[in-house]
């Protein structure tokens, strides 16, 4: 734990009889008035986000994900339904309560949205000055800690225009954390950054999540962002949540067509192409999925020796989902006793999918 003067008190209880949720959507609908016509953006959203998790919401542009995240701090008002933050219905708050609640919800943006007329220091100090309850000495100390945490101490007196994109987003993160929020909303926070900078910003978010047990909601159109830091993910398509679950489950075994497309985009594979390529390959074609430590165990060789099968690897990848290693291989299996082999794979804890019998 970093030496914070006033670390956020995220130890308190978000639990109600239904579970430990910091954000809850209960049958939320949202439509926009366009030239007198109500155009629906979100249709019946039911979603629970647990305290301390990194929750990803993925969808194509126009799927409603930006609207969804803005309902959490009431930048958008729901047309019907309820949004609870920390068990309080934010959509029913009066103006004063709403401002107070918003101080408990940090937000970072795709285009950073820093004040160009203020220095890095003053940008981070801005939410503290808005709150009006901090002395100049307290502000100086707090901003100093935050800038040190995001690695921008020596840039305190620069203006945003003098910073790189990654540095601007770090200022955004420091600003969002200034008032010790319980929740951090990230609206396409890495979409304007190059891959290397994206990596370092995601790493910073993952660290903050662990250090302060901060709940982070990540909106993105890139599956890779969710694969790197997400705990759970919801897939949004045309204003509805079509799939929700642990990132590893959704990523390795996507059910809905939209999810499958996102995963294929992330993996850079086209399944239709693959099937064509495998048409000439003899034997059974199976997909094996390894998770966790079993990824590194010599299961394939053992099973091949025991059952006398031959196999060739048609395609595959070994990577990590957040902190969990995984492997996914497509094999063609010939000779020996393939049924027993598949049974052995399953017994070893691998997920076995037969693509062609």
């Amino acid at each position, binding site marked *: 734990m970093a030496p914070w003067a006033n670390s956020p008190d995220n130890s308190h209880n978000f639990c109600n009889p239904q579970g430990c949720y910091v954000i809850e959507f209960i049958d939320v609908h949202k439509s926009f008035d366009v030239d007198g016509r109500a155009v629906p953006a979100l249709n019946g959203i039911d979603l629970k986000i647990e305290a301390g998790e990194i929750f990803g919401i993925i969808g194509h542009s126009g799927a409603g994900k930006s609207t969804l995240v803005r309902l959490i701090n009431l930048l958008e008002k729901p047309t019907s339904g309820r949004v609870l933050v920390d068990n309080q219905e934010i959509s029913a708050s009066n103006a004063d309560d709403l401002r107070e609640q918003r101080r408990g919800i940090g937000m970072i943006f795709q285009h950073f949205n820093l004040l*160009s007329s203020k220095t890095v220091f003053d940008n981070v100090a801005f939410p503290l000055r808005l709150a009006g309850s901090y002395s100049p000495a307290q502000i100086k100390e707090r901003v100093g800690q935050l800038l040190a945490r995001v690695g921008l101490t020596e840039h305190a007196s620069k203006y945003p225009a003098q910073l790189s994109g990654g540095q601007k987003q770090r200022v955004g993160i420091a600003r969002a954390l200034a008032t010790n929020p319980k929740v951090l909303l990230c609206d396409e926070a890495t979409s304007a950054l190059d891959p290397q900078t994206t990596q370092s910003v995601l790493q910073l978010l993952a660290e903050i999540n662990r250090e302060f047990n901060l709940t982070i909601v990540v909106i993105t159109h890139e599956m890779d962002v969710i694969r790197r830091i997400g705990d759970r993910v919801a897939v949004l398509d045309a204003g509805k949540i079509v799939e929700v679950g642990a990132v590893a489950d959704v990523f390795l075994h996507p059910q809905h067509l939209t999810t499958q497309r996102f995963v294929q985009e992330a993996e850079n594979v086209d399944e239709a192409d693959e099937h064509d390529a495998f048409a000439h390959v003899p034997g059974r074609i199976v997909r094996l999925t390894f998770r966790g430590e079993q990824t590194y165990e010599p299961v394939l060789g053992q099973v091949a020796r025991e059952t006398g099968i031959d196999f060739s690897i048609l395609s595959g990848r070994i990577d990590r989902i957040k902190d969990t290693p995984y492997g996914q291989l497509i094999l063609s299996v010939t000779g020996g006793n393939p049924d027993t082999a598949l049974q052995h794979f399953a017994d070893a804890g691998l997920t076995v999918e037969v693509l062609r019998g």
Partner: protein
Amino acid sequence: MNELFTNVDWSDIWQATQDTLLMVSGSFVFTMLLGLPLGIMLFLTDRRQLLEQRGIYTLLAAITNILRSIPFVILLITVIPLTLLLVGTSLGVQGAIVPLVIGATPFFARLVETALREVDRGVLEASQAMGATTRQIVFGVLLPESRPGLIAGATTTLITLISYSAMSGVVGGGGLGDLAIRYGYQRFQTDVMVVTVVILIVLVQILQMIGDKLVVHFSRK
């Protein structure tokens, strides 16, 4: 020198220069004080803005447009009763300030509105998300973020006031423009006209230069 400018009475020129400076600076102060809040209200009450109020916006926009449509010479005469009521006289420098302010305020207010519209909506959204009140957004975000645009607008307004003030001779307002019309134009004293016009050109150049320098100084983009 004096042979070239036979008709030029340098003490008259000095007096007229002082009158112009007094008229313009006096009306500039009031134009800023009235135009800035009017411009902010125009911005805030417009569609999809923080204090969206269709009725108020339509009313303010109508008043602004009407005042800006009236030719300044006509405005000078029409507001004489109001000038009498406010400052007790419709003559001289004092008498000229009231119509100058009424003429320039809606002009400046529109420039303020335009400058505020240039502020990134995302920055306003971020401020709202941080729990800022409308007042905090106006003074902490809108005005600082649009400062270069506001300074440019104020410079343009100041120069417009100089050109308006030349017409104030119609109500006996005095100043350089008045001198140029009465001596230079009506009495064919070309030398007087040349001197006054040169002074006005120099004045405008200096003010525009200062304005531009301030804009650059406060630009952070």
